[in-house]
């Protein structure tokens, strides 16, 4: 028999013992002397995190790929023995590790995905550049270097309609063109891997599962805009992503995909890691650049935009992890096949199957949440879906047919954001949710500008008062007007976005607020 | 807010009230000097620590100047009586408008730490917590500006507001008009 066991060792499964599962399986295989028939490898996220720890098995013929969840991690030897027995009896197709469960790969959760960014994630061993190369890594970079036509790359990115995946959704082609046209040879490419939104783990998934795709995207960008220096700003709370990146950078340097004269071209580009100390605001691009320079991470007004004056005063291209990871696929597929592209979401909350999914842009929320996620676990009805984290808002259940794209979500008063998607069932109090996010923004405000520093505190206190049933209708009015004021006057996206969870729930779930205002105070 | 009815034939019923404040606002009121005589012609002073002997807040008061923040249980009872029986409630002076100096005890977060600090920690040896239920009113946890307790109609800041500032508020009110307050002479705190 020839087979490969892929054990998910990304953060979520790891927290459920994924790494020890890998270890005990490898040991058992070695002890049984099965190494050449049965390979065990750790891979990035396999998708349905709620069923972790996850294990995939590719048995020859290749078509026979199975996915198993809730694997008991302790006894690898027994698992291997039962697997060998099934192989001997030709019952592999029906095999399932004892105590685990078989996950149907024909379920819409898998079938409706379109994996461009996550194509290799879960397939390859992220610590092995050989596997990445075998899967096609760095081929698009090579092609871009050979063609040596940055203007054409920019044009292709522009026409693809790719927008930044970090939250603000700025057209990537325009940003690249702005940096490319800056004079001078010293430019910087920065990858924003700060991912601080509560409930968001898309970027972590990419970095842990397939770091080379991100590095390749950065190198393509660097060649295109004329930068020779690359920086990845990653939060300290992501130790595994950091380790994977370190390994990947060293391997890419060793194979000549980073460094000087990449692939024999005249392109020089190297990448350094910068580890952030975990302030959410440091994900904001100007604060991030301050932090890279070793200063206090506080946003500054734009202009000047990073393209004009970024890190160390140099023209800087800053994009999100997922944005960079889109490039190899975009260039490989070409505009037509790439189409509108995809978006990666981390699906969490009251949903049967949570995890990381990548869906075609424009998929409806209902498809994602009900068809793919399987709806709420207890069979309750969905009340709303939250997108965009602390700067985002809620989509009420009756609008779940909204397609997931930048414009549609914005017209409902929320944002695409970076990809956090939280499902809430009908037991959820929306005022509670609004308060949760406001308390978050209050703590994470950098304190530089008055409306955000002091306004979020007043808003949080008002929400507390409402939840304690101590508020009057006038307090609700004050809540709403102060929300608008903070949104309109704050210096950066944190303060501007902080009121959105409140404004959005006031818009769609005002009754939840009114129910908390004591009757005797109502006019 | 509806304007006070513009022509009032009868004499106005005016009150002044002293909550948690130093009485400086009332001293400033007395600085109105000879204008007080004019005031006495236009209004009956129906309740005031400086101009009337009455102990209970009366009904149907037209205008009441409230000095001081709301700091103890007596203040709380009185301000509620004032609101229930007064047409125009004027928050009179910075302590009423902002809690000001009495409000500085709020930084100690609670009545208990305040009493401990004042009567035990800072006492020279023989410190004792005052405790006389029914005689000495209990401190509230925090001193609050009047408008955080009951609705206020007119704000008259100042520590204390000068006599001319007081007059700029009371005069139009007596005529049944809302005072227009702006500029450093009329609304500066402090």
């Amino acid at each position, binding site marked *: 028999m020839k087979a490969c066991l892929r054990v998910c060792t990304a953060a979520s499964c790891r927290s459920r013992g994924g790494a020890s599962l890998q270890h005990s399986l490898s040991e058992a295989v070695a002890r049984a002397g099965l190494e050449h028939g049965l390979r065990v490898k750790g891979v990035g996220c396999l998708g349905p995190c709620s069923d972790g720890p996850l294990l995939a098995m590719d048995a020859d013929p290749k078509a026979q790929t199975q996915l198993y969840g809730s694997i008991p991690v302790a006894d690898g030897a027994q698992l291997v023995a039962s697997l060998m027995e099934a192989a001997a009896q030709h019952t592999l197709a029906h095999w399932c590790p004892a105590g685990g469960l078989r996950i149907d790969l024909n379920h819409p959760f898998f079938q409706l995905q379109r994996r461009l960014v996550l194509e290799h994630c879960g397939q390859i061993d992220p610590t092995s550049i050989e596997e990445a190369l075998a899967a096609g890594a760095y081929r698009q970079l090579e092609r871009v270097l050979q063609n040596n036509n940055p203007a054409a790359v920019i044009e292709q990115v522009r026409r693809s309609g790719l927008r930044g995946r970090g939250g603000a959704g700025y057209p990537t082609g325009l940003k690249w063109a702005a940096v490319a046209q800056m004079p001078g040879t010293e430019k910087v490419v920065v990858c924003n891997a700060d991912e601080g939104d509560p409930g968001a783990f898309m970027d972590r998934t990419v970095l842990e599962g397939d770091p080379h795709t991100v590095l390749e995207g950065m190198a393509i960008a660097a060649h295109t805009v004329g930068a020779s220096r690359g920086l990845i700003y990653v939060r300290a709370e992501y130790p595994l992503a950091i380790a994977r990146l370190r390994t990947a950078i060293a391997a890419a340097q060793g194979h000549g995909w980073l460094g000087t004269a990449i692939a024999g071209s005249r392109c020089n580009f190297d990448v350094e890691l910068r580890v952030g100390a975990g302030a959410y605001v440091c994900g904001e691009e100007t604060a991030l650049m301050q932090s890279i320079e070793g200063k206090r991470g506080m946003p500054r007004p734009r202009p000047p935009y990073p393209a004009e004056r970024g890190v160390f005063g140099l023209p800087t291209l800053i994009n999100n992890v997922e944005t960079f990871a889109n490039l190899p696929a975009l260039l490989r597929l070409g505009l037509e096949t790439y189409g509108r592209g995809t978006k990666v979401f981390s699906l969490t909350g009251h949903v049967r199957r949570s995890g990381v999914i990548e869906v075609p842009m424009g998929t409806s929320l209902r498809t994602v949440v009900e068809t793919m996620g399987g709806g709420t676990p207890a069979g309750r009805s969905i009340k709303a879906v939250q997108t965009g984290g602390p700067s985002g808002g809620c989509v009420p259940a009756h609008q779940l047919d909204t397609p997931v794209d930048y414009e549609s979500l914005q017209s409902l008063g929320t944002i695409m954001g970076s990809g956090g998607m939280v499902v809430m069932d009908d037991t959820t109090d929306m005022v509670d949710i609004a308060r949760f996010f406001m308390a978050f923004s209050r703590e994470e405000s950098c304190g530089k*500008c008055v409306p955000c520093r002091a306004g979020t505190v007043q808003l949080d206190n008002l929400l507390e008062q409402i939840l304690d049933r101590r508020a009057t209708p006038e307090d609700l009015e004050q809540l709403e007007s102060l929300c608008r004021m903070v949104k309109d006057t704050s210096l950066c996206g944190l303060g501007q976005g902080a009121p959105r969870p409140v404004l959005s729930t006031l818009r769609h779930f005002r009754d939840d607020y009114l129910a908390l205002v004591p009757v005797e105070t109502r006019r | 807010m509806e304007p006070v009815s513009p022509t009032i034939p009868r004499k106005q019923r005016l009150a002044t009230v002293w909550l948690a404040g130093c009485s400086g606002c009332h001293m400033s009121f007395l600085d109105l000097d000879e204008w007080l005589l004019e005031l006495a012609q236009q209004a009956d002073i129906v309740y005031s620590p400086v101009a009337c002997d009455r102990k209970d807040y009366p009904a149907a008061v037209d205008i009441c100047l409230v000095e001081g923040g709301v700091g103890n249980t007596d203040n709380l009872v009185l301000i509620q009586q004032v609101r229930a029986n007064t047409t125009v409630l004027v928050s009179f002076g910075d302590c009423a*408008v902002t809690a000001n100096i009495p409000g500085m005890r709020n*930084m100690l977060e609670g009545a208990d730490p305040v009493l401990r600090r004042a009567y035990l920690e800072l006492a020279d040896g023989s410190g004792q917590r005052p405790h006389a239920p029914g005689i000495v009113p209990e401190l509230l946890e*925090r001193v609050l*500006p009047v408008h955080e307790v009951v609705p206020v109609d007119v704000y008259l800041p100042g520590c204390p507001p000068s006599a001319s500032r007081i007059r700029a508020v009371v005069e139009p009110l007596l005529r049944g008009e809302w005072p227009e307050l702006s500029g450093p002479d009329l609304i500066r705190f402090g």
Partner: protein
Amino acid sequence: MNLYSLRIDDHDVAIAADSTVLQAAQEASIAIPTLCFLEGLSAVAACRMCLVEVSGNDTLLPACITPVQEGMQVHTATPRLQDIRRTLIELLFTEGNHVCGICVANGHCELQNLAVEVGMDHSRLPYRFPDRHVDLSHPLFGMDHNRCVLCTRCVRVCDEVEGAHVWDVGWRGEHCRIIAGLEEPWGAVEACTHCGKCVEVCPTGALFHRGDTTDEKHSDPARLQALMQARQQQRWNP
């Protein structure tokens, strides 16, 4: 010199192309309220008092750093802006402990003046009464955090003009406070030259001369501008 012409409220202004909207407004004698801004120091656009509306632009722009543009139409005092400014001042009053009646800067305080300017006769937002401290460790000066509005003028003047960088901002959000040295008592920070510039530019009574009592602090930020000019022109006797 390249000139731009623009319209601010109902005044036409022509001004050098590298000017800010705030400078253009000053040129036209239109007062836009400011707090963190101080001529001679870098602009940080943090207090948001100088936000203005610009026709054709949905977002409010801080006049202190927004460059003028040809044909720009600026509105500096719309009802919306007036309400915003009053709310900002209320936010500042309620987040600190400003007891004007007993403050060293009473009568000469920029915050107090702004409250008058925006028509704040009371705060519609509740007072928060934070627990803050006073640093009296410096032999000449004092720092009362209760009165600090976090404008960072002291931080900037000490860094940019005096070159001592005694001050910085510590912590974040509502916990922000101005710190001396590495969060040491001011008097323990050897970098301090005792020049007093921070006291001079502080808009409130937060930084003061020891011994000053109620009403006695008179700041004169114009002295900073005189110093900057003298340095620039290398002329020390005006």
